[in-house]
């Protein structure tokens, strides 16, 4: 009997121990479950508004060479790497024109900028900027050329056929402004830097009016689009962007009429008053990127193999064209483009305040041509955002 009682007591003790263990396990599970409960979702905050950069931030400007969104995305990868490497924030500032970049350099709003060959030459000559490095692109080469082109089905076969035609160009670029002016001048088609509006208004001479009229657009990609959208008869753009367009739009064929000498592609220039040590550190970071795994990744996203040293002497072809144009070039720079029209929102049909009364508004809408075809060419894939290998 005593033995049975002892067994019973032992069994009960073990049972209580098991129950206590189960209780502890359940409590622990409850605590873990409570800790892993999802927190109330927070409303997604929008992008933070612009915050003034810290004082020691390195500000680098970029030109609107191509689609502005893709352009900034390219240079942001570069900026992130440079920030990590230099130990200071690096901010990329995109502007809406090549003149704006020069203006920012002049106004010391940026310490440096990645510039096209023409504005780089101007920055060096006018502001004493210092050329640091230029990228070697994925397809090989660190230069580009200006090209004047027409659609393959265009009746224009040579430059002389462009008399009186509309040529899409890009102000303050070698490929879209200087080179076509130079070629037109050589072909006896001096455009005199006349804008489309002046030529259309008849304020210039007949000879000048017969010259090709520039249709100024914002990027080299826009030059190509305007040509194939039919709003320009020819275009003057960077060969790299034209080649990229041909790859992404094989259905569109291009006829090249003229090709310029090569010029450095998208080199980095720093203001002359930036301390040499900073410039040297930046140069070292750029020139050694390809040897760093993180730098190589950033270069891949940027669309380059490595950075190469660049000298001011490499812009000699650009200077040669400027010197060849002489005063015409100077005049073209002095003639600012017409002010941009404001983006007025007006409905195509407006309800009248009273029956029978004509609609009136403080600002009478100008005569609006019929809506142009889609900016994106018909039957074409969306424009590429990332640089093509």
């Amino acid at each position: 009997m005593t033995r049975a009682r002892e067994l019973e007591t032992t069994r009960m003790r073990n049972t209580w121990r098991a129950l206590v263990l189960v209780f502890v396990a359940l409590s622990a599970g409850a605590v873990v479950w409570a800790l892993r409960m999802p927190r109330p979702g927070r409303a997604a905050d929008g992008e933070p508004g612009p915050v003034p950069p810290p004082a020691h931030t390195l500000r680098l400007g970029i030109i609107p060479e191509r689609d502005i969104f893709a352009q900034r995305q390219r240079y942001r990868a570069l900026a992130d790497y440079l920030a990590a490497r230099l130990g200071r924030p690096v901010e990329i500032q995109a502007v809406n024109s090549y003149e704006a970049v020069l203006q920012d350099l002049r106004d010391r709003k940026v310490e440096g900028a990645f510039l096209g060959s023409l504005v780089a030459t101007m920055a060096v000559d006018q502001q004493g900027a210092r050329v640091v490095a230029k990228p070697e692109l994925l397809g090989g080469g660190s230069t580009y050329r200006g090209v004047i082109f027409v659609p393959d089905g265009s009746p224009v076969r040579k430059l002389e056929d462009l008399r009186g035609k509309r040529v899409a160009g890009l102000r303050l670029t070698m490929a879209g402004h200087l080179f076509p002016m130079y070629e037109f001048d050589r072909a006896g088609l001096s455009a005199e830097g006349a804008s489309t509006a002046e030529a259309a208004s008849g304020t210039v001479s007949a000879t000048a009016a017969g010259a090709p009229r520039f249709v100024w657009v914002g990027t080299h990609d826009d030059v190509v689009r305007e040509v194939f959208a039919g709003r320009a008869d020819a275009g003057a753009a960077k060969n790299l962007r034209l080649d990229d367009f041909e790859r992404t739009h094989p259905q569109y064929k291009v006829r090249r009429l003229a090709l310029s000498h090569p010029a450095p592609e998208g080199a980095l220039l720093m203001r002359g008053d930036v301390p040499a040590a900073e410039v040297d550190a930046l140069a070292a970071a750029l020139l050694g990127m390809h040897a760093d795994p993180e730098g190589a990744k950033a270069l891949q996203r940027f669309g380059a193999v490595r950075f190469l040293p660049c000298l001011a002497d490499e812009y000699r072809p650009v200077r040669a064209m400027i010197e060849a144009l002489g005063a015409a070039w100077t005049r073209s720079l002095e003639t600012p483009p017409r002010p941009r029209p404001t983006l007025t929102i007006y409905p195509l049909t407006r309800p009248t305040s009273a029956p029978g009364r004509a609609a009136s508004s403080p600002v009478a809408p100008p005569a609006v041509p019929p809506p142009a075809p889609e900016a994106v060419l018909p039957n074409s894939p969306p424009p590429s955002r990332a640089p093509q290998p």
Partner: protein
Amino acid sequence: MLRRKLLVILGPLVALLLVMAVAAILLLQGVLSDLEHINTQAWKAEEHASQLSEHIGQIEVELYELQLGRQHRLDPLIDTVESARTLVNQLGESYVVRNESPGGAGNHYARLRETWPVFQTHVSTLATVPDQAVARAHSDAALSLALSLRQDILPLSRAIHAHAHEEQEALVRWMRWLVLGLAIVFLLVINAAVLLLLRVGAMVLSPIDKLVKASRELAAERFDYRVSVDQNDEFDELARAYNQLAGALQANERRRLETLGHVATTLNHELNNAMAMIELQLQLLARRAAEGLGEPMEKCLRRIHEGLERMAKTVEALKHIKRIVLTDYAQGMKMLDLRRSTEEEEGGAPCRDAGGPAGGEAGAGDLGATEPAVGLPPGLLPPGGSAPEAAADLGTSPGAVPGTKPDPAEDGPRGLPSARETGDSIVLPAAPVDRAAPGQDARSAEGRVPVP
């Protein structure tokens, strides 16, 4: 054993409560998850749609700023467009949009997704283009696309809102039923728990009641009371222990009575011998008194004889004690009430206090009593006549104690051997009296002195 029973009964109850609690928590957690889903998916999607519309307006403002020449930085515009594109992508990830309901949110989103890249291209061109005609063309296109986007965003937002609202309504209904169901289930479980606890209480209290009652019986000296508990647990053991105790007490009481009986027998034996001797002498004296000593001597002798008779009866009564009944004697002392002690009492305790002396009654052995307090059983009364007459009837057996019930079992060598043992010089009559038959001629036997 009792613990095991409790564990068997309460364990499943606790487990059931635990399971129900876990199930309730899981169900409520499911409701919270659904609510979180509605907040993060449905309402968030509607918020994204609203923000997208705001971003489109912001894009227009940024374009205005650029075209008016108030700024030439593109970063704010680029940031806004990228945020808007992110919102478009997030809208596409919403489960409401993914439902391919005809004419539902999915179609609007598909159009939105097709229109957005075109709109973005126009915005990109408008941000940089200086040419008036080109700008106007792109401006018209951008405005048209912005309108188209808004026309898709609005119904998309409404569809998302309606879906979220439906989901919320469904969740509220489910929550209502869930709460009701849980309440009913918990009520049922609580009722079951109460019934189980009552059963457990009965399982404990029932044997305790029995044991308490048995203890009271034991306290009342009813040692033959037994407890029966059939639960196969510690209460069974307690009941058995109690029964053992009662049995032991009962046996103890029986031994006490037996001992008392033995004492009485001893007294009976010893006193009877002495009384026989005295009786014999008295008979001799009575005979002599009858011959010439006169009446007073005879009277005294008669009284002595009566006293002896009483003593004999008392001693005889001691042998027939069935229980102990006490009565007050004097000065707080108690004595045995022989009459009641030899009576059979129905359901009475074998030992009790009969209280003080009753009127006219006296306890046995009361020296001042004229009447014996002994209620002798009828068999002990003399068949007739007084003691001396009985003695006379007995003839040559003056040593007989009339009125005493002969007990053949008590016969033995007590009379003659005792007389010889005490050294008396009494010459006893020849033949003893057969006491088994009162009134029987004592001399019919072998002429020996009847031995009480």
